[in-house]
């Protein structure tokens, strides 16, 4: 946490967060005077998810995602908490930068979607062509901008050149200079209804999408693929795929265990809000599931290092994932029942 000042002279407190989009959204709400934590935004925006897309390749490897598509958390949280929001896309880079400067001068902080490769303040090993990173711009400084990147532990300076490239990068999921900020928010939003909506939406997505690659069915699908991948693809290629799954789970700003810990934190906060012991139990169960995901990551790392003992096999890694699938399914079913009974 550190103090900063926005262009309007308002103090801004940088909160270190686990995930970029929920961190940015909660900071925008906090700036408007609503004290809301990152897990709350993540839960209300139904951020948790699972999907394995074998046909969408990223650096030649299939994508496994532990969250909903970029942009959805902000959209859903904004809709459920209420308020007046501005979202803009640009075709022309100059117009996009001019509009950003204009809004900053009005004393507003702005959320941007950027390409992470061109943000040079990031550690080199995190920089790759990914067009879904979110940051907050606080004010303009000499040949650059002061930005608050929720994933990092302190605000940073970003060069203007870098920011233009990052905002108008091309490729898959182009940001098109996307910027978003609230004009006003509902002063006392109906948190209870918003939480219930968020939880039920999550349960629906995890349990009811009739495609085998999403939700619980997606986890099972991937688990089976992992268990047999060394025989189908050969050890080398199977290791690359397994490594990629673990990267998606741990590295890309998840707060640990592919967002499962963050969701457990959300469930804990809602349990307090509603005074519901049931939700508290579910939170503890989610923590336990997160621990299994972590174990999966450790086992995978050992397999790839080859220094594991005999029992560390692809079948074991897939088995751990199946355990996760079973327990998560049970959890979301219980959550659906519990959330359905709650009074708004």
């Amino acid at each position: 946490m550190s103090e900063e000042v926005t262009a309007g002279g308002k103090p801004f407190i940088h909160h270190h967060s686990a995930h970029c989009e929920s961190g940015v959204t909660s900071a925008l709400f906090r700036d408007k005077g609503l004290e809301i934590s990152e897990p709350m935004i993540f839960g209300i925006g139904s951020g948790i998810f699972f999907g394995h897309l074998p046909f969408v390749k990223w650096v030649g490897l299939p994508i496994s995602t532990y969250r909903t598509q970029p942009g959805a958390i902000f959209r859903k949280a904004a809709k459920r908490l209420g308020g007046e929001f501005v979202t803009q896309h640009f075709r022309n880079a100059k117009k996009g930068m001019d509009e950003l400067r204009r809004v900053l001068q009005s004393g507003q902080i702005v959320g941007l979607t950027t390409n992470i490769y061109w943000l040079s303040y990031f550690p080199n090993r995190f920089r790759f062509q990914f067009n879904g990173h979110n940051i907050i711009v606080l004010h303009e400084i000499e040949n650059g901008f002061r930005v608050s990147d929720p994933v990092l532990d302190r605000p940073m300076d970003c060069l203007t050149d870098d920011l233009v490239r990052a905002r108008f990068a091309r490729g898959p999921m182009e940001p098109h200079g996307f910027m978003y900020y609230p004009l006003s928010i509902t002063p006392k939003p109906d948190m209870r209804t918003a939480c219930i909506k968020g939880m039920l939406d999550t349960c629906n997505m995890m349990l009811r999408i009739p495609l085998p690659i999403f939700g619980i069915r997606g986890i099972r699908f991937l688990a089976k693929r992992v268990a047999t991948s060394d025989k189908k693809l050969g050890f080398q290629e199977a290791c690359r795929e397994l490594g990629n799954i673990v990267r998606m789970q741990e590295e890309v700003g998840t707060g640990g265990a592919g967002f499962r810990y963050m969701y457990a934190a959300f469930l804990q906060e809602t349990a307090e809000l509603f005074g519901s012991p049931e939700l508290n139990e579910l939170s503890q169960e989610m923590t336990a599931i997160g621990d299994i995901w972590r174990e999966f990551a450790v086992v995978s790392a050992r397999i790839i290092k080859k220094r594991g003992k005999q029992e560390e096999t692809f079948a074991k890694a897939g088995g751990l994932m199946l355990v996760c699938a079973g327990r998560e399914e049970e959890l979301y079913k219980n959550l659906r029942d519990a959330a359905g009974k709650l009074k708004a």
Partner: protein
Amino acid sequence: MKVNEVPQDNTVQYYEGIKRACYAVNNEGKYVIVPSNGWEAEEFINGLAVDELAVNLEKTRKAVLAGEKSPLAYHMERRQMIPGILGKTAGIAVFRVKRHCRPEIFAKLKDSVLDRYATALAITREELKTVPQK
């Protein structure tokens, strides 16, 4: 994950002194954010991906020096791009980008085309025509 289980493996080279936020349970059973300075398992797997990129880049560099590919292929790969992304960024059709990766065709390119590549890759025109010798 308990607060004292949050990995603190101090992977300096990987995080470059920046800490990551992890959610963990404290002694009272409440979730709090704990800054972590690195996890070995994660660093190892990230390292694999980074090394793979470096090995491929080195291969391309050798191919350029051997006259099998044009410097454009090297610089594209250095920016972790593929012809599709570079083509869109520079405003040049993908099939042309692929053709320009051949040295004999790259050698004949006009300055105006080279400039578009140079801007898209954030390097100078002179840099675009060469690759590092070592």
